[in-house]
């Protein structure tokens, strides 16, 4: 969705916000969790939340709620009786965060389809996804994206939880062997099948390109996500792995938000990628980690805060485990962007990202 001005985008966002708040906090449509929450909180968001600024009245969403509670507490009454997908987040061990859903992923990825070119992802062809499938939303989302473009998709799974465990235990040989195993399978598919579009993580892309000439293998577009991509690394991918001739679409996203697309890089960007949330369905803010009510200045670093606003899922002010640079609205995106996303505290400590 495009907006000509930030004001128009803001107005559209706030109208959507009011609709979503009304939906989740009305007994006729809302979920057990939010109705109970409002009853205990002693205030009615429907009468007090009208603007994005009013979202500050909510505390930060607690990720334990997605771990500890049964998934059915999140079912809006309007969806009652409809089986739902249960999606799990990233690569941690222990009980994962779970988000339920029905159509959101299709909405996100149908919209994203409009942002990738037919030159790089020819319609009515074949895709390959090499990355975390399993219980992740991404698995169905990529297949949907291929499907809406008339294409079908091959899948090679990578279990990021296992990779993280191997790296945490310093079993680097095992981690490498597992990565080789994943890349072997992808190379095999590329050798024997016609594939033009690829979704993978940056590290797996690099490893695959060491094994296979991916241009000669038919790949014309790469859609990437999953880990930190600092400018020099992006440049390396664009110039040396994709050799400036394969389309590169970095994205930032997760099961809780959906998909934040990046704007096409220009020379002035110096390979610094800026992502824009799929507003109005999600809002990304870059906040002061010491005072999260405060949004940092443009071009300053801060912690990423996510608010998800769909009829299927409401999640206010969730503090991601990421930090980023706040960027100004740009191009088709009339709202703030987040750039150079990396794990929160990455400058202070080593964080296991592995291949995911």
């Amino acid at each position, binding site marked *: 969705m495009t907006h000509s001005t930030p004001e128009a985008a803001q107005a559209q966002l706030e109208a959507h916000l009011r609709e979503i708040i009304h939906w989740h906090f009305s007994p006729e449509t809302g979920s057990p969790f939010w109705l109970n929450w409002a009853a205990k909180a002693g205030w009615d968001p429907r009468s007090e939340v009208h603007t994005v600024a009013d979202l500050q009245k909510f505390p930060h969403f607690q990720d334990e709620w997605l771990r500890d509670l049964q998934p059915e507490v999140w079912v809006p009454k309007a969806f009652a009786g409809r089986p739902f997908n249960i999606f799990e987040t990233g690569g941690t061990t222990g009980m994962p965060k779970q988000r339920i859903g029905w159509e959101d992923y299709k909405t996100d990825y149908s919209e994203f389809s409009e942002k990738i070119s037919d030159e790089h992802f020819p319609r009515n062809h074949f895709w390959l996804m090499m990355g975390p499938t399993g219980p992740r939303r991404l698995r169905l989302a990529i297949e949907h994206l291929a499907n809406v473009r008339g294409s079908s998709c091959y899948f090679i799974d990578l279990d990021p939880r296992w990779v993280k465990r191997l790296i945490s235990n310093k079993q680097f040989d095992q981690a490498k062997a597992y990565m080789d195993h994943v890349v072997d399978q992808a190379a095999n598919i590329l050798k024997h099948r016609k594939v033009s579009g690829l979704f993978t993580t940056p590290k797996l892309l*690099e490893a695959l390109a*060491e094994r296979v000439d991916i241009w000669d293998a038919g790949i014309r577009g790469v859609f990437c996500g999953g880990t930190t991509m*600092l*400018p*020099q*690394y992006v*440049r*390396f991918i664009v110039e*040396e*792995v994709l050799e400036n001739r394969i389309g590169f679409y970095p994205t930032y996203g997760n099961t809780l938000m959906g998909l934040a697309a990046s704007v096409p890089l220009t020379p002035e960007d*110096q*390979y610094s990628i800026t992502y824009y949330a799929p507003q109005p369905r999600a809002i990304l803010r870059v906040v002061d980690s010491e005072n999260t009510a405060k949004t940092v200045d443009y071009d300053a670093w801060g912690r990423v805060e996510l608010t998800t606003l769909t009829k299927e899922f409401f999640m206010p002010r969730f503090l991601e485990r990421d930090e980023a640079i706040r960027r100004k609205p740009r191009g088709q995106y009339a709202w703030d962007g987040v750039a150079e996303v990396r794990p929160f505290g990455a400058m202070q400590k080593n964080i296991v990202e592995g291949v995911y």
Partner: protein
Amino acid sequence: MDSLPHLPALRRGKPYESLEKTDVLDHSTGKVVAQVSQVNAGILKKDLQRIGEARAALRKFTVAELVEISSKAGEFFLNGTLPLGDRGHTQSADDYVRTLSGTSGLPHVMVRRNMAKIHYALTHVQTVLNGLTRGLPFDVIDRGYGEQSGAAVSYYPTTQALGLVMPSNSPAVNSLWLPAVALKTPVVIKPGREEPWTPYRLIQAFIAAGAPAEAFGFYPTDHEGAGEVMRICGRALIFGDANTVAQYRDNPKFSVHGPGFSKILIGEDAIDQWPQYIDLMVASISDNGGRSCVNASAVVVPRFGREIAEALAQKLGAMAPLRSDDEGAKLSGFANPKMADYIDGAIEEGLKTPGAEDVTARHRSGGRKVIFEGGTFLQPTIVHCDSFSHPLANREFLCPYASVVEVPEAEMLSVIGPSLVVTAVTKDPAFTSQLLDSPLIERLNLGPISTMKISWDQPHEGNMFEFLYRRRSIERAE
């Protein structure tokens, strides 16, 4: 011209400016003196896929021509004004001395001594190769086969490139890789974070002397990148601590350079004359700021241990930090003050075990760790240990440090452990014979010779020729 020099990566000789750069800082003022482009491991992997081109560029030259180029490079390195980075800067020899001194903490006089060593190594590559190959005619390497002492010989290269993960502590360690160029082996260098200067200047000197630029890779990179240098290059030199040495020692791909644990042993027949050898001990412990693996880190004697420790402490205790341009400067500052903290802490921790005394503490002014004109220094430390099993008896630190331990001569060789250099002051034939038989000693100095003395025609830490070439059996039909 931009005022701050920028050292690009050199990808088979071609400059590459990365979007990620690190600052190189003056060790005393903290001022940024240069920026260095950092590359990721993927770039190394990409480039090393085409390393055969670098080798082909060197193969166009004969060994004799490359020896000549090395010699000219030695002159350029010692005296020349050479390109410094990609922003129009140049570096004279004096600039190099000042800059390296500023960022490493080595006094000018020590940088010059290191320069002289490197210059000697480059201008004597012929001698070095003769020593390493035991007189193999160079055309055998050019052609791949030939004759030596009437026998057919053939040698083949073991690798397309020599990987180097360099330390920051002492510029002269670069002399170890210099023969590789004449042996037609491209080098892939990951410089030490605080010492990019010497490898960069050496590369520029080689290029100025006529060597093909594509034979040189200069890749400032992270831990992962260093791992790729070691993994992909068929042969690599690694510098590290005892753990690193233990990890790679038995792998023929690697030539591992760790702590030397070099020692001075005095035999029963010479111990009564110990005062004569105090200056030898002082020089062996403290030359080059005590930073070399060939610095003595233990003095093992049958008697007079306490007296010797006291005499050494008196002499070394007088050594204090001086300005870096003082010709009398003997101590080196630390580019990374945390390293000084670590060493100071490790010695203090060791002293908690009964049976050791920091004898220098009574003779020096101030503590072991001192701040002088903004730089961090460690003053010399002599620890008297009552047994070689004391945790401080066989340690090596990046400063003038040595233990003095009494051990009966008959037990010395069973307790000293692996030692890069042993200077044994003895004329006793039986003890000499035991020393010559010992597999624990890499280089043996018989008589009062500083542990710091290096013979370039004899390998003291692995043989570069045997590392880079392997002999095969050959027969040719007439």
